[in-house]
């Protein structure tokens, strides 16, 4: 069954770029959320195989959503993808259970490499 990927970012443009990259590389089952709150609600129903999560978002940040989704499902797979990439933030995310942390802007090859590795 095709892997389902949830893209969480308040920037429609960033979701579009990510979706485009993933679609072109065989990942076509893509769902989207514009903030951490929506992502948490969607997780319960959709159970995506992977979440790519921004950090700075309205309503609920990516870090809070990471924490909440991990509490719901410790086996959930989440990659953080943010314009803020300071060391303390990366460490915090990894400690909370994120599998990787990509700093924007990223090259498409980089995100694909990580997605392929996690979903293989």
């Amino acid at each position, binding site marked *: 069954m095709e892997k389902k990927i949830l893209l969480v970012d308040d920037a429609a*443009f960033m979701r579009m770029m990510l979706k485009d990259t993933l679609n072109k590389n065989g990942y076509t089952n893509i769902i989207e959320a514009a903030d951490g709150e929506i992502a948490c609600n969607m997780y319960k129903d959709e159970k995506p195989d992977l979440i790519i999560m921004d950090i*700075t978002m309205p309503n609920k940040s990516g870090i809070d959503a990471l924490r909440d989704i991990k509490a719901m499902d410790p086996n959930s797979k989440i990659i953080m993808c943010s314009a803020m990439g*300071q060391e303390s933030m990366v460490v915090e995310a990894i400690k909370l259970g994120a599998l990787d942390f990509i*700093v*924007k*802007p*990223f090259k498409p090859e980089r995100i694909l490499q990580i997605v392929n590795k996690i979903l293989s």
Partner: protein
Amino acid sequence: MTLNNIGDLNSMHVDVLTELGNIGTGNAVTSLATLVGKEISINVPRVRILDFNESVQFIGGAENIVTGVLIRLIEGIEGMILYIFEDKFVATVLKTFFGKEFKSALEINEMDKSALNEIGNIMAGAYARALSSMTGLKITLSTPSICVDMAGAILSVPAIEFASIGDKVLFIEDSFGIGNDMVNSNMILVPELDSLNLLFKKLGVGI
């Protein structure tokens, strides 16, 4: 001793802020180059301490229509970053990402705005990373917000909010080449005074 007004900054402080401006902008433009997938050549940014009124003139006057992206610094260093994107910059971005011809900043659609917002977000993130790395402070940013309006209106946002600390801002004038086009993008940094004092303390610069 502490700073009570941005006008209290002396030439040494300005030098320090200029260097921060250079380093921060260098990081931000590198990020921008990766995002647009093109080489960007950068001229040395020009950092000035300006009155709000002077900075309005620098961006074409109070009635000039500009695109502004505002990001708040909410932890570590507090204050605002305001990017002012001139039409040529907006045109280059829209052409690069969407292949569309730019007519007027007032006609850009929601996806165009999202792209410009994200550019501001990424550039501010790079700037914050540079500041964080130099000061050891964790710097958190707000979500960006975009506005296309007259320059006077856009600049009134930081002016009103920071009226209590004086009427001066750090104005970083960037000029860079994307492909064959030279474009300008200006960044206005308005730090809260406590943050400015903390910044100098972390850098070991006396007040």
